[in-house]
């Protein structure tokens, strides 16, 4: 075989090997989940004994707040419990338990189901909202079923089901405002990008990959005795700012290298 032929073959073999890597990653995720699930059940029971646990976690996490309107926080404070339940890595549900507010908001427990599917598409077909490319999730579609939730009475004006006139400017505006509220996320399907609760998929990922698994860490962070140390939780943390990290004058500096 000529060198070129050998190399050409090698590339194909590498491609196969990469596919095997993907398969292993998936397999590892399943393994991880099978180990974690019983522990999560145990942990959920402990968390129930700690008052305001989820309220504290959710107010602590700055990224969480970025998805919501400020007025939603009245109802975030009603969140008594959050549970994620996985059937498989790609099929799971989020259960949120709300306490009520007399005359405004009914106590309720709502479970929303999700599934992630590989989409065999190399091009730009289908969805891809206005999101940046998320390399990790390329070719995966997260979707969900609409689930009923009773909106607060205070939201009547922006509640999409109660807006009668959706044609007027005022009506359209209220509709759009309503679609940005936490309650609109419960009707998010992932199938109508641009027309649903914005960034609904990242909001799901936030719960499933960050808030739920690391809730204890966020809880303890919120308990720090010095409030001024409350930096950057859950933030993207690109610090181009900051001190110049100089090495010795006489030599080229290596560099800052944070890993």
């Amino acid at each position: 075989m000529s060198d070129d032929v050998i190399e050409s073959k090698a590339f194909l073999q590498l491609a196969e090997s990469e596919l095997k890597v993907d398969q292993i990653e998936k397999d590892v995720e399943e393994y991880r989940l099978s180990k974690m699930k019983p522990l999560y059940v145990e942990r959920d029971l402990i968390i129930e004994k700690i008052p305001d646990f989820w309220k504290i976690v959710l107010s602590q996490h700055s990224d969480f707040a970025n998805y919501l309107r400020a007025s939603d926080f009245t109802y975030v404070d009603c969140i008594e419990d959050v549970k994620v339940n996985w059937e498989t890595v790609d099929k799971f549900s989020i259960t949120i338990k709300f306490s009520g507010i007399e005359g405004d908001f009914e106590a309720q427990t709502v479970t929303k189901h999700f599934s992630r599917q590989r989409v065999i598409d190399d091009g730009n077909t289908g969805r891809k909202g206005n999101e940046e490319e998320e390399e990790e999730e390329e070719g995966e579609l997260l979707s969900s079923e609409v689930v009923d939730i009773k909106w607060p009475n205070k939201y009547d004006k922006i509640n999409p089901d109660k807006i009668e006139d959706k044609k007027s400017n005022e009506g359209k505006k209220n509709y759009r405002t309503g679609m940005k509220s936490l309650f609109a996320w419960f009707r998010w399907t992932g199938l109508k990008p641009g027309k649903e609760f914005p960034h609904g998929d990242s909001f799901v990922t936030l719960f499933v990959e960050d808030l739920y698994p690391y809730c204890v860490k966020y809880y303890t962070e919120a308990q720090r005795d010095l409030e001024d140390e409350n930096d950057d939780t859950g933030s993207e943390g690109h610090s181009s700012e900051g001190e110049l990290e100089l090495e010795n004058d006489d030599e080229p500096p290596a560099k800052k290298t944070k890993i």
Partner: protein
Amino acid sequence: MRLEKILSDCLPSDDRFEVLHLQSVPTENYPIVTKKLGQDNELITVKTQHFFTLFQNSKTVFGLEIYVYITLIKKAKLDTNNDVLDAERLIFISKADTTGYNNKRINIKLITKSIIHYLLSIDPNYYLQKVKPLKRNYVGKFSNYISKSTSTVKALKLLSKRKSAHQKQLYPPNDLFLHLKCEQNIVTKICLFTRPADQYLFADSSKNAKKHVLTGEGLLLWWISIMDDLLIEEYESGTEAKLNIPGEENVRIRKYFRNLKYSSWNIGDIFGGSANSLAVFNIPLFPDDPKSRFLHQLVEENRIYKTDMETFWIELQERQEFKAGITVSVIGISGHLRSISKNIPMDGEIIKTPSKSSFKHLKSYITGEEFDTEEGALESYSNIKEYVVSRMHKDLLTVSGTYQFKPKIKPSVQKFTITTLQPRRAK
């Protein structure tokens, strides 16, 4: 000097406005200008961020972001409780922006200048009473505190102990802060970097046709005239006043001085350093500033010890795409104020955020919208109002305007009074 009064004097009469003035935790910072390695750092630098927002008719209309640095000179044996230190104040104007959704004409330039007046009136000691230090040492008697360096498991054990002992949260002792004092009458510098952009704070606001945009030159004229006024109104004579336009010939820079009232404007910057001294030890490091970014890049490219001031400015200018004819400038003034700053802000006119993340969070409620339509400006207002009122149990500051527009002033002045900060789209 009250913020309400200052703003009332420059907001149009018969109209009501709301104002939010956010302030970050005063925090010890690395020196503004980098020190040589191994050189003893004899300075203490305290950095505080201010963010002003103006609302009208339930819409966000104007934002101004300013950093105040107090740099103190350490004494050999520092007794932080008693020593009054020599110090210097530096006001860095970071960003100013409008949304264009004001329904009445407002004089943004006057408002901007008035807010700077207000900041100049604040006693520098106000920032020094309780400073978050660069590093905290939690060993020994502080080991029962839940801090940044406490692991999750350790924190849980501490929480458990506190519950069982009916012990309340620990309150941080004074030892965990710096308490400093400085002279009241200190050198006060103001500096800024002007560069035209579609928007500085309010995303997509340039898509609002009503928003005025300035060219690089217009922006420079706008700012230098504010600085010129401040020199006349606030500073002692003999104050240093500098303008530099990287890549521009001196003759042409001088042209900008012609209509200014202060007589000692010069070419250059207030940070000193000769043409062949190293840029790294002369150029200040400000947040979100192109000069700082360029310095960081020089570090990464291993050129930081080879780049002198002259090369720095030349390369900076080349990076600014001067081919497109954009004028950028560095403006700075440095001197003593005529009257001593002794104002202490009152509760109603300032919201002090407890942490860096809460500052960011509040600011993001204001700037996190898209301002291409009025809805963004409305949403921005309603979010921050809701948050401040229902979560913080405070309120925005209400200001009634008393300013009468005088339609018949010199045309050149009026031209700028009606213009907002926004430069015209380049190219």
